[in-house]
């Protein structure tokens, strides 16, 4: 049984080449307003044997802000160590997504938190173990590992043109015949 990733039929067309490859940009004059724009993103080179056996994942972690400011590098090293050291993955990008952001609700007495976002390539088989390891560590308050079949916008550098703003903001509101619906839809009703 090969190590090769089996992709869903829809993704197949894209991922036979390097998923982070970016299509050639259309020149400024011809570009339509809804066509995406690509900015350059610096990524480490992917060894060719990894291209077919690994998937692109993203892990989003929540830390205590005081601890994060003290030892941010140690935390990054810890996660990197798990991905690259223990499991032979390749970290693509690491970000401090938010520094001491107010949380939507209190977690373990914590009202603010620091978020780390990391993109990496790894074999699918290791994800369960990685998840368990992140859960074990006391410093990681929450984590979420997300799979990407195609490279996400942050890696391709695609800047999405928000076509929605070109139209007037459609709020469908309460339909006149919505007699059986809830009463608390809408922003203005309170």
């Amino acid at each position: 049984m090969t190590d090769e990733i089996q992709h869903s039929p829809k993704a197949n067309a894209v991922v036979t080449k390097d998923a982070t490859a970016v299509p050639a940009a259309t020149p400024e004059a011809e570009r339509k307003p809804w066509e995406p724009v690509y900015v350059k993103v610096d990524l480490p080179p992917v060894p060719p044997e990894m291209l077919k056996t690994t998937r692109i994942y993203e892990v989003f972690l929540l830390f205590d802000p005081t601890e994060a400011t003290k030892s941010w590098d140690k935390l990054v090293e810890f996660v990197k160590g798990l991905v690259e050291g223990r499991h032979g993955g390749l970290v693509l990008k690491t970000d401090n997504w938010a520094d001491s952001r107010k949380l939507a609700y209190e977690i373990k007495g914590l009202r603010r938190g620091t978020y780390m976002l990391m993109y990496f390539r790894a074999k699918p088989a290791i994800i369960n173990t990685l998840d368990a390891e992140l859960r074990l560590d006391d410093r990681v308050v929450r984590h979420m590992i997300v799979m990407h079949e195609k490279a996400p916008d942050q890696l391709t550098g695609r800047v999405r043109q928000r076509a929605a703003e070109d139209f007037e903001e459609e709020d469908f509101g309460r339909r006149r015949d919505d007699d059986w619906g809830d009463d608390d839809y809408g922003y203005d009703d309170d």
Partner: protein
Amino acid sequence: MAEEFERDSGGFRGRGRRGGDYGGGGFNGLAPDRGRKKAQRCRFCREQSEYIDFKDLQAVTKQCTAQGKLFSRKRSGNCARHQRMVNGAVKRARYMALMPFVG
């Protein structure tokens, strides 16, 4: 001229045969399609989004009420595919404390 079949209101009460604002789509038994071209009502379809990121709070918080409840598809205007993505994104955002469960 006699009608071949009974038209019922199709759930749209008080709108008569014309269907009021809803004419032009050919809903169940109401006035037939008037040939009006319908603009895409799903904002994600217009953007041709393939993935709705739970971290993209600008887009995702708009899919909930002020109380943090998800909007129904009828209210949000999303297509089925994107509504499913929205639901997943909101639930992930709630878990990661980017959005509230209540409030």
